[in-house]
């Protein structure tokens, strides 16, 4: 005789009271609701004011408007490619294949640090260089660098608050001084960072800019030893200070046009310098420079010899997520890194589903 029949008959005998059933039905309901509640809690439904990747990118769209198909930050740019020739010096710090002597192809993108893809080029706007090193067997190293010596905030909340405080007022076209003062008052690290930034003269163009990793990372060698590092790309093109011309005398795309002209003349080169951190050097705070005189390892030379517009170039498909790292390079404890990865991904996903409008630097401009 099947067991189910017998057990259900036994249960018939001890028929539950109506009250008991109600209690059990309610328990089922409560447990199910609790499970749904935990899920919603984890997804942040009960904390509508907490900063999330989506809300941070909403902030960019609020300040800059929505420009379909463009990156929500660093929207104006050009695609470049070339190669990195490693001299093998970096291998003692990191087992990453990119540091064994030899050449790997590189895709890159020069950009301006603005959420407005048609913004006019200006000397003080942060210049970005995103790079993707294509290592053998499909491994990749991506890095998104800027020409600032330090970053202006320590974390995503500071970034968001600064973006909102420095948002131009509709009446004046300038940030509200009261909001800016309030932000600086509560963020002494930002004031300090701007002092460091102002002490570094801006170069005349992309080609002679130094680009910095900003965040610290960790290099891991073949024995598993971990070293805190920052890196920068030092141009082989000689430094020239930015000319102090009036804004209305400069062409809207003067920085990009100069880069295009330079690259059509000859390949542009940078040395990859690895700065080795010492115990006590902050790895979790991108606003603080490491002390002068830290050992720098010259790991090789980046050569960029091909340029294309943002509309057609290879970089268009790439999210220069700074946490796409090969074995041998690992994130530091800097909270900005995970936040950058999350926000870049959010921006990438949004633009991927949109039809891109033509960029500011057109394909024909790049052909010249």
């Amino acid at each position, binding site marked *: 005789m099947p067991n189910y029949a017998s057990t259900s008959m036994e249960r018939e005998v001890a028929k539950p009271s109506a009250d008991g059933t109600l209690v059990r*039905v309610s328990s089922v309901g409560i447990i199910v609701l609790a499970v749904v509640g935990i899920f919603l809690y984890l997804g942040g439904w009960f904390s509508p004011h907490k900063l999330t990747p989506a809300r941070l990118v909403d902030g960019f769209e609020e300040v800059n408007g929505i420009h379909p198909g463009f990156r929500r930050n660093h929207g104006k740019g050009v695609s470049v490619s070339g190669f990195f020739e490693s001299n093998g010096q970096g291998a003692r710090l990191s087992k990453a294949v990119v540091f064994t002597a030899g050449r790997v192809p590189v895709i890159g993108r020069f950009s301006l640090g603005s959420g407005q893809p048609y913004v006019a080029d200006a000397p003080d706007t942060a210049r970005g260089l995103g790079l993707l090193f294509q290592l053998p067997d499909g491994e990749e190293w991506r890095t998104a660098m800027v020409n600032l010596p330090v970053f202006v905030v320590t974390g995503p909340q500071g970034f968001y608050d600064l973006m909102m405080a420095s948002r131009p007022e509709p009446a004046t076209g300038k940030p509200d001084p009261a909001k800016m003062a309030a932000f600086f008052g509560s963020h002494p690290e930002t004031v300090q960072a701007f002092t460091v930034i102002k002490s570094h003269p801006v170069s005349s163009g992309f080609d002679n800019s130094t680009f910095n990793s900003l965040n610290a990372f960790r290099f891991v060698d073949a024995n598993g030893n971990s070293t805190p590092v920052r890196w920068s790309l030092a141009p082989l093109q000689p430094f020239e200070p930015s000319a102090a011309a009036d804004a209305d005398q400069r062409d809207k795309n003067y920085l990009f046009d100069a880069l295009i002209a330079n690259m059509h003349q000859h390949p542009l080169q940078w040395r990859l310098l690895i700065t080795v951190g010492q115990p006590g050097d902050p790895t979790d705070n991108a606003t603080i420079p490491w002390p002068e005189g830290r050992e720098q390892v010259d790991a090789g030379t980046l050569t960029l010899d091909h340029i294309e517009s943002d509309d057609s170039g290879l970089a268009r498909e790439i999210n220069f997520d700074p946490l796409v790292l090969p074995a041998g390079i690992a994130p530091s404890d800097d909270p900005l890194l995970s*936040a950058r990865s999350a926000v870049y991904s959010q921006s990438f996903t949004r633009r991927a589903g949109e039809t891109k409008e033509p960029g500011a630097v057109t394909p024909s401009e790049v052909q010249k």
Partner: protein
Amino acid sequence: MTTQRQFPASMRFLHWLMAALVLTMLGIGVAMVASLGDYHSLVSIHRPLGILILLLVVIRFVNRLLSNVPPLPPEFPPKERYVAAASEVMLYTLLFVIPLVGWAMLSAARYPIVLFGSIHLFPILPRNLVLYAFLRRTHTALAYLLFFAFVAHFGAVLFHTWVMRDGLFDRMAPWRVSGR
């Protein structure tokens, strides 16, 4: 003649192992998209765990085909039998398709699909931003569907076990339930 009362031990083991992994995965998934500070560490677990689930669901499916399945309690009405069978098909399908869509979307987005260290998977789709955007949305939509399917499954088993007390849970109980 004895009637088989429980699923075979291999099926019960895979069921509870995957239940733990899939619940963890749903929690990680919904938390990571809302997180800035923990995003990277959660994604680093999400990817290899998703591939593990894909592997396990294939093993589980083959094991399911090769195993004897205990009958539903006889008092189950035909309509509920149909719902039970359909929800099983749906759960298996989602557990297979969601990780596959995840893998496909990373391929289309041109990301290296890192599992551990330098170990990563080959792309299963050509890179294409439009495809990525579509698959990314699909991944989320199907994951919500899986969550609701899980809640329905969980709620239905609780209801049968506590309210109807028909011994349904015994079929999949992690411990051995002997037929009396």
